[in-house]
């Protein structure tokens, strides 16, 4: 099954600029479905980015992060061809990860 994670990691000078878009409902638990029942909360809680065994960025998310969440950040010390491992854990214990190559 295809990963939910899409990553664009590009080197700009000495900075690796990372953009991530993840396919996830990020349900708040406040919305009702067509039958009038509450759709239970289901959202990514933690998203980590690891480069050469070091966590370069850690996101703690609540239900107020948009559906199909997006985040952008940048870090130093990467070289072209390096791997960046992106993983998430959600409120239902679901997980996914993807290893991207820095361009």
């Amino acid at each position, binding site marked *: 099954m295809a990963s939910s994670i*899409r990553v*664009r990691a590009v080197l700009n000078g000495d900075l690796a600029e990372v953009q991530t878009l993840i*396919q996830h409902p990020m349900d708040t638990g406040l919305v009702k479905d067509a039958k009038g029942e509450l759709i239970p909360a289901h959202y990514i809680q933690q998203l980590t980015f690891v480069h050469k065994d070091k966590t370069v960025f850690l996101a703690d998310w609540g239900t107020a992060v948009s*559906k*199909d969440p997006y985040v*952008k950040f940048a870090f130093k010390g990467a070289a072209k061809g390096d791997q960046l491992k992106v993983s998430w854990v959600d409120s239902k214990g679901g997980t996914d990860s993807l290893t991207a190559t820095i361009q």
Partner: protein
Amino acid sequence: MTVLRLALGLGFALGLVASGVAAADKTDPVTEAKAFQQFFVKKFPKVAFDDFVNGPYSMNEDMRRQWEDKEQFPPYEFALEAGKEMFGKPFKNGKTYADCFPNGGIGIRQTYPYFDDKEGKVITLELALNRCREANGEQPYSYVKDEMAALTVYMAYTSRGKRFEIKIPDDPRALDAYEKGKEYFYTRRGQLNFSCASCHVQSPGERIRAEILAPALGILNAMPIYRSEWSGMGTISRRFVTCNSQTRAVPVEPQSDEYRNLEYYLSYVSNGLPVSGPGARP
């Protein structure tokens, strides 16, 4: 002659339909399209011509910034991937969508809709896709749901940048379809008594409640669109239906004569503008 053209031009500017003036002479779509485009270009001198395809974003800076920010990694990304996969997957009989379309379906979105002289009707891209499915033993997709949206997302994407080139052949039936589309566009309907022109010709750039109105020029070039309001993708069919509902008019069936003719008219008068789809909208 000049007076007549001026009157035709004014007719569009004021959103009038079938004024005696227009009916007095044979319709000249070429002239009408020019007048239509000139109306918007004059109304918005600061908007670059190609920018009209960006709808409300060509009308409001604050909104444009939010849109450009999201375009870095757009919300229709997943629909595009799904669409590409669907397009390439063979039907049960082994054939593919590519077999139904010129150039394998790649880079052709800008030629739809077209007038089919054998059938004597307007064929839109959505209709053509479902006909392809049915011709190959598959169930047609709903015109307003995600599968049709994904397919048209992919086809629009492969045609990005190509300029609309809608043709009206020298055939009275084609001219009639164009006329009917124009008539639908300018006719008031429903509880709010709005015509499409009420918002998209008379008030582009202004707000209706919370929304900034898009100009009619280039309004279909970004389709299909990911709408924040829908939290998802929508086809041209979906947008025509929901726009009718939102203006408290009774929608007709997707791909009915009215909608296909409307799409024909709106696409034709936007000839020369580039395909910007798939797009994102509020």
